[in-house]
């Protein structure tokens, strides 16, 4: 399945004024300040660890400290890649930025407000209404058609099935998936599935899209196709993009690359 870059460029820009357009000009959209994440401390206790171990002295490898004093600023419409080897803390940083994890210390500000000051329910609502997510796999419900999968976030936000499917259909068309509305994820190729996931992330018109290894399960050619679409769609909708990846070729699609190691940002590169 192929699609034309120019067609996509036109098609992926859809209607509504993004919610974040009202954000204060110049102020970062999202900001991590001195973020430390220790999985043994506070709320973030790994499920697999027995209770006694939580109180034990830290392991000599201290592998439970995933982030050490991380500072990041992301502007509206900007695209940032987070790179680094396994265990460097990339996904933990993404989860902290998205309000999924509460950092042990430091804070994450979204539109100037600390995420930690919001309740769990408020953060869940925020993720549903302002943030889009694309993962490596397992993000589409296998029992639902492509159309229903894309309509789901809108229904979660309270829209009717009729309205939600009408909007979802437009986004699927924009992602070059016309004619595949009734297919289930199991009946789609890897690239098609990721495009459905992309449509699902964008359908709520988010301020930021968080993508965790979005091309990890794809071949190189399909991976480039998905990244083209992801960056085009986010730029045209004035939506920030945060991509976690191992792949430098994927990272080069972004305007800035942060390299992590042992829970710290060791290098920042602007392209």
């Amino acid at each position: 399945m192929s699609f034309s870059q120019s067609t996509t460029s036109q098609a992926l820009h859809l209607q509504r004024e993004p919610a974040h357009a009202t954000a204060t000009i110049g102020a970062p959209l999202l900001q991590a300040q001195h973020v430390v994440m220790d999985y043994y401390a506070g709320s973030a206790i790994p499920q697999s660890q027995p209770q006694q171990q939580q109180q034990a002295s830290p392991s000599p490898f201290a592998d439970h400290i995933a982030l050490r004093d991380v500072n990041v600023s992301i502007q509206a419409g900007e695209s940032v890649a987070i790179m680094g080897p396994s265990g460097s803390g990339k996904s933990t940083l993404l989860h902290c930025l998205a309000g999924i994890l509460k950092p042990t210390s430091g804070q994450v500000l979204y539109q100037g407000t600390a995420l930690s000051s919001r309740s769990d329910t408020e953060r869940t609502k925020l993720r549903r209404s302002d943030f889009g997510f694309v993962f490596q796999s397992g993000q589409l419900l296998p029992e639902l058609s492509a159309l229903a999968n894309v309509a789901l976030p809108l229904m979660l936000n309270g829209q009717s099935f009729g309205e939600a499917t009408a909007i979802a259909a437009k986004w699927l068309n924009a992602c070059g998936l016309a004619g595949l509305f009734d297919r289930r994820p199991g009946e789609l190729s890897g690239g098609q599935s990721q495009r459905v996931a992309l449509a699902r992330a964008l359908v709520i018109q988010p301020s930021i899209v968080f993508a965790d290894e979005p091309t990890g399960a794809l071949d190189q050619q399909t991976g480039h196709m998905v990244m083209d679409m992801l960056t085009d769609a986010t730029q045209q909708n004035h939506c920030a993009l945060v991509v976690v990846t191992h792949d430098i070729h994927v990272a080069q699609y972004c305007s800035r690359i942060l390299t992590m190691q042992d829970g710290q940002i060791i290098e920042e590169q602007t392209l």
Partner: protein
Amino acid sequence: MKTLWRLMMLLYAPARTTRNNRHTVSPTSILAVLAFATTTAMVLTVLSGLHAFMLRAKAAHAWDALTSASSTSQADPLDLMSGIYVTLAIFACLILLVPIGTLGGAAARLAAHRRDAQLSALRLAGATSMQVTWLTAVVAAGQALTGSIFGIIGYIAAMPIIKLLRFQNREFTWQELWLGIPTLLLVVLVVTVLALCSALLALHRVIVSPLSVSNRTTPSALRHWRAWLMVILIALSIGLFRSPWASSALGIAFIMIMITACFAVLNTVGPWVIHVSARRMMRHPSSAAHLIALGRVLDDPKRAWRNIAGVALAVFVCGITALCAFFASDSGNDITQQIFLHDIGLGGNLTLAFATILAAVSCAIAQVSAVFDAQREYRTLVLSGTDMRTLDRARLLEVWLPLRAVVLVSIGCVCVLLFPLVGAVVFMQPITLIAFAFGIVLSMSLVLLAVTASHLVAHRVVRLDRREDD
């Protein structure tokens, strides 16, 4: 065989535990053992009832033979009805076969639960497909063996309660309820072998490759012939029930067989009813929870049916026991008849209780199993802002929507089947209707409660505070 044994020892033998390396039993294994234990305990308890009535019938016939030369007038009239009690007990066993089989099947599926990562890793390490299949099946059989041993303990623990029940105007004795060591061993063997076969059958439907585990087949579409089968059987039953022949002893036996057959056919029709009603509702789901629930129901209507099959049976049993309650209240001063009808009512209520417990346990097991199967999807949904309340509601609706449709169809079948036998007057009596409605509401509530219990597992599975590979 030697390699298989080595693989088993490598994977499942108790490891030398250290502070950082504790050997833990997976929740699915515990649930599978629990399900096998419940199945075995139920089978043994039902069999012990049958055994008791057979012993009583045997004793009555011996008494009858001793006194037949003179007169049978001194024998207890209830003893003379022992044969009917045995027939009714067999009837109860027959109708409990389906929910017991359903629970056993659910347990076997859970035991053979696709440990995708582990199975694929074994294939990647060089184990053959056959070795991996047998390894999983043998583990399932091991869980069945453990569960059935716990089931025996459950059966023995329940004996003092069962002993208190009064049938034929007297309590059971220990001797009547004790099935004997050979029978217990036989039941353990049967449960284990059935689990092994069921696991092999389940694994036949999946392909375990070095990279993943996937389904070999997709579920086939459900056809209309299922509904026609039910209609034909009900028509045949009504014809039989209306014939004068129905009042004979053989006729009564046939009535029971036909009711059992109708229930068996309901097992074929149930998934079709669920499919049709869910497809209709899927045109305009009213919320995100409805959308998720209906998607899962339509994905596999047979699985949705298995969740609630026990309640459909409970509706049948409710109908019969409600009628008994009516006849018992209307039996005048004939003590023997009153006791007989009381016993039928009590037997019906016991069957109803067993069917409901089996349905609730099956449903809980199936839901928990489904949570483990879909944990990755649940987790990503929660990551992207789906609240747990929506997912809990979706799981509840996944059971409630088919349950509602199937209960309505079952009530219709019961009324159509029993109407020619007893007439319209009985259905107008408040006592019949109250007993009927109470039984149905109770069994539905228990099943929904079981689904609620699976929420705890789901909340645990989708916890977001553990570190991933980053």
